[in-house]
């Protein structure tokens, strides 16, 4: 609040969901340290009081990949362990409650893409995240379901994590090792370059795990909801949305790409209090 011409005026200043950044960096560092510790332990060292799991051991998508094999034979596909299945179940529970919060709050690859995107935002200002023609973009958004089907098929038929050879997440945490395939490094490189132009390109167009979790947007308990009675229809929520969802055009966001980042809410970009909410109830 400031006083101008004798009147107290509330100046709107876009806020950020800063706690989300903290959570994102926490998990990025946690996973990086665990992977580092895994290597140290293998070479006889290790960091005390820190898990030394492999990257696969702490990746919930591994639980999805191994599900068919596990149900069919009771075995895990190569490199996948019980923890992957447990994490997959936990993340699905989170997603049923809150939507794909894993994507928006936890996934380190999403965090890194957002970080690189800051460069694009500075370079291109309002053009950033609007380079892809809408019609093409709408079609490409379904590409990740094709990737998901392919990953599940090749994993089930081979019993191996063949997707690892193309997985930018694996490359992100193993780029220094000889285990990583050049193809996954290339996919990571392309993803990071595209992040300068598009917010979260991997998440939008190719992530098979995002495809799985995105489906929970259709029936999640807590959703982004817009109160039409107080909405000023300024479009701020839609402009801010990293996934280009037209929040201002719907009452309840059921878009399969929402990542529950809350950046569109009245807690962040929306200038009107209690207008864009993350709620399980109804809004007027």
């Amino acid at each position, binding site marked *: 609040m400031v006083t101008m011409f004798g009147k107290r005026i509330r100046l709107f200043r876009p806020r950020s*969901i800063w*706690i*989300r950044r*903290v*959570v994102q960096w926490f998990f990025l560092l946690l996973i990086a340290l665990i992977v580092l510790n*895994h290597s140290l332990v293998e070479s006889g060292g290790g960091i005390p009081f820190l*898990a*030394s*799991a*492999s990257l*696969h*051991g*702490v990746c919930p998508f591994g639980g999805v990949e191994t599900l068919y094999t596990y149900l069919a*034979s009771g*075995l*895990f596909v*190569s*490199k996948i*362990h*019980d*923890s992957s*299945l*447990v*994490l997959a*179940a*936990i993340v699905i*529970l*989170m997603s049923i*409650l*809150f939507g794909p*919060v894993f994507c928006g*709050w*936890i996934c380190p690859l999403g965090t890194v893409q957002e970080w690189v995107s800051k460069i694009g935002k500075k370079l291109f200002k309002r053009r950033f995240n609007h380079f892809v023609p809408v019609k093409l973009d709408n079609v490409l958004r379904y590409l990740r379901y094709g990737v998901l089907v392919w990953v599940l098929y090749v994993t089930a038929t081979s*019993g*191996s994590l063949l997707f*690892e*050879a193309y997985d930018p997440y694996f490359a992100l945490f193993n780029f220094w090792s*000889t*285990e990583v395939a050049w193809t996954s490094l290339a996919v990571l490189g392309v993803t990071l370059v595209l992040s300068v132009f598009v917010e979260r390109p991997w998440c939008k167009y190719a992530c098979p795990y995002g495809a799985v979790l995105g489906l929970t947007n259709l029936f999640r308990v*807590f959703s982004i909801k817009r109160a039409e009675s107080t909405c000023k229809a300024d479009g701020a929520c839609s402009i801010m949305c990293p996934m280009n969802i037209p929040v201002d055009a719907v009452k309840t966001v059921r878009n399969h790409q929402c990542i529950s980042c*809350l950046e569109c*809410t009245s*807690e962040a970009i929306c200038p009107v209090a209690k207008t864009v*909410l*993350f*709620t*399980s*109830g109804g809004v007027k």
Partner: protein
Amino acid sequence: MTLTSKPLSVILFAILFGGIALSSGMGWWATESTKEPAAFTEGEFAGLANPADIRGSYTFGDIANSFEVTPEILAQAFGVSTDDPAAFAVKDLEAIYLESGYEVGTNSVRMFVAFYTGLPFDLTAEETVMPKSATDILLAKGNLTPEQVAYLETHTVNVNEPASAVEPVTESTPVAEETHVESTEDYTIKGKTTFGDLVLWGVPKETIEALIGADMPDPAMKVKDYASANGLDFETLKPALQAEVDKVKP
């Protein structure tokens, strides 16, 4: 109910780490198996677990986690009788086979897993024997190379017959001459000849199938039993098979 970012972040941590703690308490949380063999680093099998890296401390369950072979198959192959084959440690095989005098142990398991899964295995590195029960399973699976079949022909042991009847297997003792204990060493089909024997003698699986007019039976099945069970005349089938054996016998 409406949530803002701070309570949401607390709930996320609670669900995630609470879930991990709960699963850990239930014994479901295992981030890795320390019993994970090293992977092939090059060639067409690069990245796949290498059977040669199976250790004596591995259980059959550990092996099943890294290779496409179940604990039950391993138990059947190596004659292990247990209610929980997944918990059986490879190193315990030597104790089981101690009295037989044959060195059936970790390397036998390595070779079996490699042959069963179609992964490479260096047959020149160490003389390795295979129990007949394991060989039968491998032959039934039908994915062996001619080199592997030839190796098994000379390195399969019948553990029910004491090794003291022949020379113990040592690196300096040619296993082929010492441990070949097939039921009919003179390559003559008799009542106790099994289909596995025919394959070990070199008769192609396809030839056997053509003569019996059906898919290859269980290698452990005797030809005579198969004939009587399927309405075939053993005395008619035997000469036909014998003719094929005579064509390929050494």
